[in-house]
């Protein structure tokens, strides 16, 4: 078959950027995004990190304010990832993917736009929280620790975008995705992120989905140390890593199962 030039009146090149910009604009102006993924973590950092009497107490390479800053950034990134991935699963279930399949970019274009937007939308609160930290006395020791912490705060986006996808694909409703996003408060509490846990709760924490990503993000600051309610405890790298990989695989499997279920229902 010879190549046939598009026969439409079209002369312009198909472009993804206008879609990406519109998507980003709508995402960032969405009230839930502003309140829950930007203002809430930022407010929590200022309240429990910057404005506390113990904020400047040393922890690892830095201080308590930096510790709180990283925890809140992890919390915010996880919420963004859940909300955006879940929202896109609902969009696809609603037939938007078919609309995209009738464009030259196809679904690849859609995924590129969504992934790009998810990254940029997560970077906004992440950057704001880190900027607030830098301005209010958070200390990470060195620039490399600042940079490594900033980058590793994006790691929990991996399991939590799958978490959002799984919920979106299974329930196909924005309400369900909203609930999943709100559930991050629970995971934040149960993963040693909101406050240092101890005893049974700390044992449970090791098996919750945010623990691995959060503890990895804290490693540049804390090294092998984990802060618990009973003080500092040493923990080898394989523990958070195993948690992260296990949850990522499990959630990916649930996504596959949701996909099968959706196909079977057609």
């Amino acid at each position, binding site marked *: 078959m010879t190549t*046939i030039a598009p026969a*439409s009146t*079209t002369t312009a090149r*198909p472009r993804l950027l206008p879609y990406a910009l519109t998507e980003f604009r709508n995402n960032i102006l969405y009230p839930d995004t502003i309140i829950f993924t930007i203002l809430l973590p930022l407010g929590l950092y200022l309240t429990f990190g910057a404005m506390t009497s113990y904020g400047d107490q040393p922890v690892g390479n830095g201080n308590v304010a930096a510790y709180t800053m990283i925890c809140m950034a992890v919390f915010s990134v996880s919420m963004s990832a859940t909300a955006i991935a879940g929202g896109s699963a609902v969009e696809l279930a609603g037939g938007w993917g078919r*609309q995209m399949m009738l*464009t*030259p970019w*196809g679904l690849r274009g859609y995924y590129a736009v969504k992934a790009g937007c998810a990254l940029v939308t997560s970077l906004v609160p992440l950057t704001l929280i880190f900027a607030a930290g830098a301005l209010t006395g958070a200390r990470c020791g060195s620039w490399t620790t600042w940079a490594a912490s900033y980058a590793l705060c994006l790691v929990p986006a991996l399991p939590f975008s799958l978490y959002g996808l799984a919920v979106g694909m299974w329930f196909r409703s924005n309400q369900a995705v909203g609930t999943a996003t709100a559930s991050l408060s629970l995971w934040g509490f149960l993963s040693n992120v909101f406050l240092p846990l101890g005893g049974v709760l700390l044992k449970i924490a090791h098996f919750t989905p945010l623990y691995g990503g959060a503890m990895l993000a804290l490693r540049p600051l804390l090294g092998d140390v984990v802060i618990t309610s009973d003080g500092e405890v040493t923990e080898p790298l394989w523990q958070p890593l195993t948690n992260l990989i296990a949850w990522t695989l499990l959630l990916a499997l649930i996504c596959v199962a949701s996909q099968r279920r959706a196909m079977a229902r*057609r």
Partner: protein
Amino acid sequence: MSNDLQPAVDVSGLVKTFGSVRAVDGIDLQVQPGEIVAFLGPNGAGKSTTLDVVLGFTTPDAGSVRVLGLSPKQAARNLRTGAILQAGGLLPDYTVRQSVDVVAAMRGSRGDIDAVVELTGITAVLGRKVSKCSGGEQQRLRLALTLLGNPDLMVLDEPTAGMDVTARRDFWSAIRERAAGDKAVLFATHYLQEAADFADRIFIISRGRIVASGSVDEVRALGEGTVVTATWPGCRTDDVTRLLAPVASTIRGAEVHGEHVEIRTTQPDDVARLLLTATPAHHLGVVALSLDDVFADLVDAA
């Protein structure tokens, strides 16, 4: 254009199964450039599945599909196809304007925006969120998205479901305006009247098979018989069988609604004569079989 002679849609021997269900069971279907073709059938007959294959969303289990001489996926990627998909297919949180801009950018057809917006009559709702639009407004937006890039084949899956008569007429006049020339339209519907009013040709599908095809008149001619109506005071169903026994072999069905009797027959003259002479019936009428009757026959027989 280099491929004027290629059919817009050329499907042959199409089979698609879901589990143990043969949703599409050996369909042949051709649409020529410039034609508006209706794909008519009851719900679950296999219409949407066939359209999905034509659009490249699903791959068939057997048979061949060419769209404007290309594979369905190539045709879609080259912007030769546009589609209104059944329900959904929109982003509820976007405004109408944003939806049009985004799809126009992705289809590389921003030059078409003004003309398409005007043609589909969505100028007044451009600033409105899609979720706040009425069903009819959303459908006009879907049409606008379809027309962007001026595709050569438009595939419309139940495009006017839920529209009132005026809206339906406006919708089709917009399509006709855009489809003038060598554009082809293939639309699925379960409204017989819509197929009769707007299609050049009709394919009737039932349980995954094409049971009839042709122009409206050709399809109508497939129905066997004519309907004789009469006012028959005190008529009961067994009266019809008893008193019309001499012409029983020509009768294809009879319905009694109070005093009103409808008899479907291949020999309307004989039935009329008998009704006037052997029964108290009066006010006789002889009418052609309605498309609905033909459609019901064809679908039931399948």
